[in-house]
């Protein structure tokens, strides 16, 4: 017999990068796709430039646990490369990692960037994204999160139209230009979907 599978997504980054609002977009998109969803997040002190992470769970049956175990996430979306390494062990064997290359180095003892990239590339299923370069090309300084979401969206059972609808609604209060630029960033990320850059 096959038991219902619970799917888990981990999102991580640094306080102020927008991890929680990205998680809410993912949650809403999955929910609108007819799935049962739960999200767990930690607030408070972490707002102050510390490590931040959120988890989104989904299944086709009602869920009650908002958190997943180590080794069971199918997707890790990381807005910062060093933060990604903290949560690699959350991924299942065949899980995917979508990670921004751009580091946030305002902390003590940040390891050499080359070592961080090497460690990330050693992860099977890793997709390193040069968010800085894409943001420049899109003329949108804060495009990083949406670019990552675009690529990550290709691993999730949500139609493109639903993603676009949720993103558009999310940014609507900030005006049509902001909405348009975030959709562009999302599309650019979706366009990156190719083979993993990792091992």
């Amino acid at each position: 017999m096959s038991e219902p599978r619970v799917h888990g997504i981990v999102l991580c980054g640094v306080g102020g990068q927008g991890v929680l609002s990205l998680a809410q977009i993912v949650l809403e998109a999955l929910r609108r796709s007819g799935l049962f969803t739960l999200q767990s997040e930690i607030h408070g002190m972490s707002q102050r430039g510390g490590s931040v992470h959120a988890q989104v769970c989904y299944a086709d049956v009602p869920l009650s646990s908002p958190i997943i175990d180590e080794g069971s996430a199918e997707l890790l979306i990381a807005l910062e490369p060093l933060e990604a390494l903290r949560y690699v062990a959350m991924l299942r064997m065949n899980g995917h990692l979508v990670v921004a290359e751009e580091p946030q180095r305002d902390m003590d003892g940040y390891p050499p960037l080359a070592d961080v990239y090497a460690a990330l590339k050693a992860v099977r299923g890793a997709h390193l994204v040069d968010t800085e370069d894409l943001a420049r090309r899109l003329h949108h300084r804060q495009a990083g999160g949406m670019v990552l979401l675009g690529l990550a969206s290709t691993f999730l059972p949500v139609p493109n139209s639903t993603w676009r609808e949720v993103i558009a609604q999310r940014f609507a209060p900030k005006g049509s230009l902001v909405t348009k630029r975030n959709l562009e960033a999302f599309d650019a990320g979706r366009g990156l979907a190719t083979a993993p850059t990792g091992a």
Partner: protein
Amino acid sequence: MMDGTLALGAEAVGCAAFDAGIKGAFGYPGTPSTEGFEFVEAMIKAEPEGRVAQWAANEKVAYDLALGVSYAGHRTLVTMKHVGLNVALDAYANSALTGVRGGLVLLVADDPGMHSSQNEQDSRRLAEFAWLPCLEPSTVQECYDFTLRAFDLSENMGVPVMVRLVTRLAHCRAALTRQPTLAPTGLGVVPRESVQDWVLIPSNARHRYVELLAKQPRLLQELAVLNTLTAGTSRRGVVVAGMGRAYFQQLTLEHPALAALPRLEIAAYPVDPALEAAFLAQVDEVYVFEEDYPVLEARLGLRESCPVHGRLDGSIPRTGELTPRQLKDALALEVEAGKAPSSLDLPIRAPRLCDGCGHLDAFDALQEALRALGRSDARVFGDIGCYTLAAQEPMSALHAVVEMGASISMAVGAALAGQTPAVAVIGDSTFGHSGLPALLTAVDSGANVTLLILDNRVVGMTGQQPSQALDRVERLVLGMGIPAAQVRVLAPLPRQLAVNVQAVQDALQHPGPSVLVFRRECIQSLRRGVLKDHDRNEEARLEQASCSPESQP
């Protein structure tokens, strides 16, 4: 209706309180409870109709405000974090004796794992201590449903009802199904013939305590529907509560064989001893999965009827947050291996004060002044807020942080014991919360203390809520009796460093209590424009006052 709207667990409690017809909501900010008040506050602002939402100076004040609303015959919600209930404990414990008129529900959010707290105390113990009922939801929908039920229970039993959340549930986001909103209708003020119930002089209190104890059997009956025993074919059984209940429920989806385990599900306290006995009669071995202290586990263990596994016997780690993985390990379920953790050494990314934060400039001035006086060995007593982060390396600027308001009294105590210079550092909101009585004693004692009030005009760490002492900290200090010559208001800015260092030195050299108010708005609230309307109104008011004829010389 906003059926299907996404809400956090804490928000679901606030939403249910609104729908239950509350007249007033009160609280003091504290992670992870803050969103409960903020959600209902937003609902009340959108549809006031006589309802009020008011942050209070501290949790005890918040609780007493709620008790006053209840006395007036209306439903009311009060919110706080677990350590906040310590502050409100006098009010909470004694409200068990007065009882309630309008339904009173207390949202308290515990923080096992101490994500944002100084301890991981379990509020269920305080409910038991006060002989009051506690409902413990395990899902966001239950947060809503149990809160509605709590209001009915409160009025039916005539007692306050605690709804206890933990961080994982308070900050779990899920879709919510609401009930129709009830209008905030009242039962009328406590009638004349019942007034003595609310006057807790010993002769009345003795009588009320007997009545409170007499309510307990009926309370067990009322709560029985929330605690359920499910029979199973195994002789191994599980007791689950709160997040333990949520995690176990989900485990049974993945491992249907777990359905064979007799299961005692607890969602309301006190628990009927007869139910525990009925469960124990079905099993030879018990696993207890509850969040935080081993409350149920200790009760079952006392019966000595069979081995009980949980935090006390080490089946679950004694401290920290409960996790689904701990349930799997305790039950010896197979765990699929995932990716290997990174072999790279990962330094901690600690939270820190924001770039450009005024607290940094205040600490610079303090440390430089102490250096200039050759007293870098001085002990600085800190308090609870963003500035607590200054206790970390490399600043190491605070040498004790205990609980809200402790900085001032500890510095006074140390100074009275001869430990000088004694310095206290406290934020404006924490000063309003419990620094005021401490300052009164500081003045009375005449102790040689230097007090730095870091006034960023908001409750910074919990999300820039309004500070009750907004723009009148120095007036409060003067009113407490600190001489005007020993009160300075300073601007914590890099270009003011020399002035500030001199002011701190002067204060340190003064042989009695002196107060330095470092005032600069939190850069987060400034960016969000939190005080923009307030400042504009204040400016207009001052302008008008200076133009009115009475104010002309």
